[in-house]
């Protein structure tokens, strides 16, 4: 588990993950909405697994229901990491 992880690092990791899932990098801004990006529930479950493995942060189903933008995820992780 990392000692201190910065919000910038989390942001990079989340964006890298979404790009790996199939998004174009230029589309993945902090303001980008998941529904506009075509990010679905499976993507969010994959992202949650990465976040738990790498930051020890658990995202529950109800957490994920409330996430609308890329920035929302980064904020949530940063708040708990």
């Amino acid at each position, binding site marked *: 588990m990392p000692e201190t992880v910065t919000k910038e690092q989390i942001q990079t990791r989340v964006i890298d993950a979404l790009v*790996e*899932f*199939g*998004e174009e990098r230029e589309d993945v801004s902090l303001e980008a909405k998941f529904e506009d990006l*075509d990010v679905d529930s*499976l993507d969010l*479950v*994959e992202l949650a*697994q990465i976040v738990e493995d790498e930051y020890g942060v658990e995202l529950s189903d109800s957490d994920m229901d409330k996430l609308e933008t890329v920035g929302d995820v980064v904020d949530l992780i940063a708040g708990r990491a």
Partner: protein
Amino acid sequence: MTRKVAITGVGVVSPLGVGARSLIDRWTAGESGIVDGLAPATEFEPTDHLTRREARRSDRFTQFAAVAAQEAIDAAGWGEEMPYDPNEVGCVIGTGIGGISTIEEQHTLLQQNGGEGGVSPLCVPQMMANAAAGQLAIRHGLKGECYGTVSACAAGAQAVGAGLRMVQHGDADACVVGGTEAAITPLATTAFREMGATSKEGISRPFDRLRDGFVMGEGSGVLVLEEVSAAEARGASILGYMTGYGATADAHHLTAPDPDGDGASRAIERALADAGREPGEIDYVNAHGTSTPLNDRSETEALKRVLGERAGSVPISSLKSSIGHLLGAAGAVEAVATVLALGDGVAPPTLNYSEPDEGLDLDYVPNKSRTLERNGRPLVGISNSFGFGGHNVVLCMEGGP
């Protein structure tokens, strides 16, 4: 009175490239897709045809089916908007084992994580054997009856038969059918080798005296089936007709066919009866022809039973001599090859044939393809698929107008 069914589009990914014409043209020319005892689909590059996202969410067996189905649906001229109510279009895609490479990879990850965790959330949707059928329905908006058939080496043919019945019976106006397999993996290749099923020499030589087992291949074949009058009304180009399906079980052995060929011959008879044809009307047989000591003999017996005195004069050839055994995809890839061969008026060759075996004395179109005599009417062919477990499936087809 059942409805008649036309074949309006076909698509293939195989060891002879991507594309149905690539398969039939290269087979007819005598080319082999087997290298070093295996027949992988080496010309297939997923991201040539699928988005990164689609490719990433699909096991290789689903990727093959997606690409083959795209070709078939494009060839059928379905374009942007399907020419049928999507609620009346079905989808049946067979496979032997489904997402086995996903299973193997994810199992390794699980073990590396001490048996807990490490498994991708995509594991289930990728490995499930119905993934190909489901993905095709999603990609093309097919909202009728949709599922996968599982009967080993007969699965692909059984899917075609299932779709045929759907349209014949009126449960659908059209059906996208086929089979797919991507089982060239460490576990599967080793498993087949350990049971003595695959050729130690790595040579596929159906019906030859020195045959010693099949060669593993991979790929997918997909066909678009449409009710005939609807196909004609919309001006579809008709490749041929799917006229009959016959299926039986040997009830004999898990891996060996019934040596008498009883189940196999009954499946041929049922397919012919479904098509309203007599054995005497068969112009060409696309054999199961795996190059195993057992199948090639029992299949010969079955053909002799049905064809009687004519048996020696009907051309019989095996696509497996060129591309190996595509397992759950074989029956569908071979159906595609059969309808195209009938349309071209050609019996493609059984490759690597040099020594006849005792009792296997039929015309196996050795090594060089041959013209089929049309006699002023469309050519009639059958395609056989016999799976481990004793599943016998025969499809009867006719060439296009």
